[in-house]
């Protein structure tokens, strides 16, 4: 072992350690921000390690430097701009886009090595070694392509650029995807047999497979898919690590892959869905409207913003239940103004956060934090559920399925077993909602029929603005 090898070994080891500490630190609120920086530092350290290794051994040609600088400048520039500009509400599609690009990168590396074998892989004519090389290239291309097209479709669907085509909800899609999968498998083995031209077949069919699998999935399940694709991009990175013989890449890729799987599992649990039904079940609303729970509402009480304000003024304890609708209406800042007024009047305000509130687990916390809501006021479901009986008013803002009592009472309901917030235990429940349409499960919400529930119809942001006006008229929050 000469010096550059030893230096690179030490730096790689340090980088892995710091990356692991970074991921670990990201799991605690206090240390999360520093941990993120630590991980970023570890990444740059790994680049320094790699470049210094090549400088110390084979040297780096001027031409290489130029292309390194071009690629890294453009990539970092666009990444920085997007990261600074994107609104917090579009976080899921942003993560999807970044993730897709990571997959694309692995795909391109494998493609490059396959078309133009780099020096060290040519020298090894050993059959076993070249087989491993072919396999890792194929895996990298396969997973990379699925990650890329899948993520892009996920992003387009979340942005509303793509809708769910009708045929993808029929059985045809399984047939189509099986054809793509079989074709990728054929290309895979053909490639390993040494037929390099089938690499393009592999690229095309695995890209199509990524589209075919993601397209039928409904918007509500998309976060699960993004999390899964995030895991895939880790696997693609690990496969690329085998292609270029880098342990660091393999470790980091494997860590991300495993972490993504766990996170996917957690998300599925929170939504009471199994991963299998997310991936192969199609859009949930398409199934369930036909089956159960599509009954009519019989006992809807609708009320004005004014009544709502009067009830709030008289309350001692208010719990806010924010949901997807609030995120879509971008009403988190307006909500914060309302709660500020209530707090100034000595009313206790708490936010009940369902594990999958918003558009991704934890997304609602980010949105509320952006609106300056103190972290201590955000209460998780298990903590807040015993508080509902002692609560005067619950404001449900754009949440639906997560407050459906059916999940507890009706064993025939598709929601049965999903953990929900027991808002019906409170004295009065106000549901602010645009219309009577069902939540993304497509299931009737029994909460709306209960005598202590009143509906306030309207866009969340507009209703909250009106509420601010009414509270002002009542003199709430003025000193």
């Amino acid at each position: 072992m000469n010096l550059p090898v030893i230096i690179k070994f030490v730096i790689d080891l340090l980088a892995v350690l710091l990356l692991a500490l970074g991921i670990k630190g990201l799991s605690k609120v206090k240390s999360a921000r520093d941990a993120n920086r630590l991980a970023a530092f570890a990444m740059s350290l790994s680049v320094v390690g790699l470049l210094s290794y090549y400088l110390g051994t084979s040297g780096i040609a001027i031409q290489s430097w130029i292309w390194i600088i071009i690629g890294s400048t453009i990539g970092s520039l666009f990444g920085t701009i997007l990261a600074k500009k994107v609104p917090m509400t579009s976080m899921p599609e942003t993560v999807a886009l970044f993730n897709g690009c990571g997959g694309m990168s692995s795909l391109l590396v494998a493609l490059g090595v396959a078309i133009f074998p780099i020096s060290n892989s040519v020298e090894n004519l050993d059959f076993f070694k070249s087989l491993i090389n072919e396999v890792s290239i194929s895996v990298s291309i396969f997973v990379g392509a699925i990650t890329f097209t899948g993520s892009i479709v996920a992003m387009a669907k979340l942005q509303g650029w793509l809708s769910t085509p009708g045929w993808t909800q029929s059985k045809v899609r399984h047939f189509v995807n099986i054809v793509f999968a079989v074709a990728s498998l054929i290309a895979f083995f053909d490639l390993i047999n040494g037929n390099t031209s089938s690499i393009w077949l592999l690229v095309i069919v695995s890209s199509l497979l990524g589209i075919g699998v993601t397209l039928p999935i409904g918007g509500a399940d998309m976060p699960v898919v993004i999390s899964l694709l995030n895991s895939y991009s880790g696997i693609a990175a690990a496969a690329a690590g085998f292609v270029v013989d880098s342990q660091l890449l393999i470790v980091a890729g494997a860590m991300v892959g495993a972490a993504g799987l766990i996170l996917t599992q957690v998300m599925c649990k929170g939504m009471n869905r199994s991963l299998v039904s997310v991936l192969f079940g199609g859009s949930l609303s398409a199934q369930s409207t036909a089956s159960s729970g599509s009954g009519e509402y019989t006992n809807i009480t609708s009320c004005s913003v004014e009544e709502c304000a009067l009830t709030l003024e008289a309350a001692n304890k208010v719990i806010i239940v924010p949901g997807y609708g609030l995120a879509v209406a971008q009403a988190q800042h307006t909500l914060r103004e309302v709660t500020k007024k209530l707090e100034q009047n000595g009313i206790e305000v708490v936010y009940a956060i369902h594990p999958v509130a918003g558009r991704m687990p934890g997304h609602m916390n980010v949105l509320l934090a952006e609106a300056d809501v103190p972290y201590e006021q955000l209460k998780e479901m298990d903590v807040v559920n015993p508080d509902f009986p002692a609560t005067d008013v619950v404001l449900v803002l754009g949440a639906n399925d997560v407050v459906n009592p059916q999940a507890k009472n009706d064993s025939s309901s598709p929601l049965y077993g999903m953990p929900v917030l027991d808002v019906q235990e409170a004295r009065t429940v106000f549901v602010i909602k645009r219309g009577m349409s069902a939540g993304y499960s497509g299931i009737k919400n029994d909460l709306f029929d209960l005598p202590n529930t009143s509906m306030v119809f309207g866009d969340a942001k507009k209703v909250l603005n009106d509420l601010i006006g009414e509270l002002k008229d009542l003199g709430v929050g003025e000193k």
Partner: protein
Amino acid sequence: MSFISLLWVLLLGSLLGLELIGKVPPTLHTPLMSGANAISGITMLAALTLIVKAEGNVPLLIIGSVSLGFALFNVVGGFFVTDRMLAMFSRKPSNKK
């Protein structure tokens, strides 16, 4: 590095990942996903290797450079966006009153 030892690396890395993510409060799921996503851009090292070893092969240099661009878009964007999210949590206590 032999293939077998690389497989060991893969196995231990996966176990490490499973262990690290074990208990995360739901609050941090989105930032964690975003941060882990940034780390998956580690393929930038593979892209760099490709460029360095291209030895004047221009198409390969271009592929490597594009690949590096995509990877860094993922890494830099991912870390910045994660930081933006986490900044919102950490500034909370000081803003309270």
